[in-house]
């Protein structure tokens, strides 16, 4: 009788796990691309893909935890004020379960490690043959951008599509955080230090540049806009700005 109850109990837990895993997989596949900012660079595409893969890998594990927790809440919760009686039977030293758990955890961890190192290597890869250098300066509470070689400065960021951009990032007063969510670019801007970061915009359109370090009174307003334009439009913009700022 006890064995039948145990089998039914495990079957119920398995179905709960299967259902929660299915829900988790659906959320893992569809939520990131819909909830995260629109991808406008290879970096952001890789970031979204990594989050999807990690979420898919985590879904059955999370579902297992929730299935056991739900099962315990439903079947093993003691009601009443009296002291609960000792359990009739306990599972101890279950070799198959222990080995399976350790093996699954190891495989999962190694997979995540290899994927993560691969993604990091791609993210930190070369910055192309002809990168566009943009100097980024953060100060309370504005971003300013300059384009070396052209003497152009701007309070907004304009980038050409398809060309690797090499950001040289620094700060003048306190630590700021240079963040372009749409491009998967985020790094601290530190006083007295220039940090390099590169990305390749691959979608035309507008994006926001925000500060991610709480940097003082108007930190919340340390936001500016950026635009990815075609290479021809970028050349025209740069020439126009150079002429206007020379005058």
């Amino acid at each position, binding site marked *: 009788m006890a064995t039948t109850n145990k089998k039914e109990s495990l079957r119920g837990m398995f179905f709960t796990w299967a259902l929660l895993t299915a829900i988790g997989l659906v959320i893992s596949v569809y939520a990131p691309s819909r909830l995260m900012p629109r991808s406008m660079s290879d970096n952001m595409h890789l970031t979204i893909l990594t989050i999807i893969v990690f979420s898919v890998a985590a879904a059955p594990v999370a579902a297992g935890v929730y299935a056991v927790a739900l099962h315990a809440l439903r079947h093993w919760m003691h009601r009443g004020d009296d002291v609960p009686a000792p359990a009739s039977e306990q599972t101890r030293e279950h070799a198959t379960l222990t080995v399976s758990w350790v093996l699954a955890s190891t495989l999962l961890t190694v997979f995540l490690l290899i994927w993560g190192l691969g993604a990091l290597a791609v993210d930190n890869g070369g910055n192309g043959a002809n990168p566009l250098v943009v100097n980024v300066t953060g*100060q*309370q509470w504005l971003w300013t951008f300059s384009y070396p070689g052209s003497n152009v*400065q701007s309070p907004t960021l304009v980038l050409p599509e398809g060309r690797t951009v090499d950001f040289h990032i620094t700060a*003048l007063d306190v630590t700021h955080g240079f963040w372009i969510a749409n491009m998967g670019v985020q790094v601290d801007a530190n006083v007295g230090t220039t940090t390099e970061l590169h990305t390749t915009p691959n979608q035309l359109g507008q994006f*926001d540049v925000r500060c991610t370090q709480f940097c003082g*009174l108007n930190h919340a307003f340390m936001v500016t806009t950026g635009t990815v334009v075609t290479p021809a439009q970028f050349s025209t913009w740069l020439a126009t700005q150079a002429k206007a700022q020379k005058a």
Partner: protein
Amino acid sequence: MKRSKAFGTAVISIVLGGGALALAGFALASAAPHQAPLQCQPIAGSPGNCTLTISSYPDSLAGEHGTTGGAHADWVSYSNYNLDVPANTTVHMVIKQYDSGGSLNNAFFSHVWGTTTGTATYSIPSTDGKTYSKPAALSVVDTNNIGHTFTLRGVPGNGTPIFVSIPLPANPATNSITIGSGTYSSPVLVSFTFKTGSKGVYEWNCEFPCGGSREGQFGEAMSSYGYMSGTVTVK
């Protein structure tokens, strides 16, 4: 019975805790400086245009902090920090700059940005403060001789994008004039125009490091609302 009593205690604790937090927030909000916005005055016979004049002082004795200067009388300040301007209007702004100056930490802000002409008009007093230079339209001023900047910018998604930044040269005059309970010298006069778009709230602040010594001179007056920063509301 015990359980319901514990539940009741938890609910009362949460309500009282939330109430205490709300009270503390209300007290802080009430203690923050409030100033009636300075309205952009319509220019007679010139629809779609208005004029606004503010001042920058080396202390807080002549502006909205009163003749006592408030809590920090020695802090630099602008005369007004909340400004109201109409939508889709050309704003003719004048800033009287009474303070001395020094070097900017970012040459970007020695340029004039976002005005309708690409320039601002500068009139500098003589050392004795009795005469003024002929007004000159400039797009950039000496990076090493700046008193303050008036830098106005929008927040993406809120109203028409605006970015206006005006460098205010250091005041060379040494004469004495009294305004409020402060003693100053004849001001540098800076005038410029910019156009507003749709309704929205914009932030402005000074980008010359003129606050306390901490945080790269961006502490104290630069880090406290109502001295070197404020809002422009386009209505």
